């Protein structure tokens, strides 16, 4: 639940999602759900030449199970808030 809430607060930010198949997609976080499935808007692939099939794709749905990393801007994260939330979750969970 923690990361679901965290990502909900990040909606509207530019993120880069790195998938387990090494595909990296940059886009605006449109939405997220309980499975951490991600919907991105205004997407473009980081290494476009290596993945030519994605050229016309501007919005996409990414299944949560295939995400390796979600790269965020450093000022997009309130680390202290996240730290507190994690501590609370660990205590209560």
């Amino acid at each position, binding site marked *: 639940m923690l990361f679901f809430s965290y990502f909900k607060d990040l909606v509207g930010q530019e993120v880069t999602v790195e*998938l*387990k*198949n090494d*595909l990296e*997609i940059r886009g605006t976080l*449109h*939405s*997220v*759900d*309980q*499975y951490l*499935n*991600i*919907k991105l808007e205004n*997407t473009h692939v980081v290494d476009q*030449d290596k993945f*030519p*099939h*994605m*050229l*016309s*794709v*501007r*919005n*996409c*749905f*990414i*299944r949560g*199970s*295939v995400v390796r990393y979600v790269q965020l801007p450093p000022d997009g994260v309130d680390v202290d808030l996240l730290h507190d939330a994690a501590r609370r979750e660990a205590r209560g969970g």
Partner: protein
Amino acid sequence: MSWAGPEDIYLSTSLASYLDRKILVLLRDGRKLMGTLRSFDQFANAVLEGACERVIVDEKYCDIPLGLYVIRGENVVLIGEMDTEREELPPHMIRVSETEIKRAQKVESEASELRGTMRKRMEFLDFD
């Protein structure tokens, strides 16, 4: 993936906004399927009408028609909405026949297999 009400379409991760649109589905085995999304569920299972597989080898590509497909969600990596006003592929790519692309695929897989076995042979010889 939650079921969306009419107003939720703008905010949720539901695939409802992609219904009846042309989509690209990336599968875990590396295949790329294209078609019209007709149905989906909470597992990202999907029904694709007029599906075809786009095979790309270097500069060559081919679209192999498949018909009506039901895709099991666990195989899905990504579902992308294809913008019909944009170019689907870079202009330098050449469209070839099914037989030719299958031949190119075979050459590519044999080359990577050979690289794989040579590496395995080298690893085997490395006793350190």
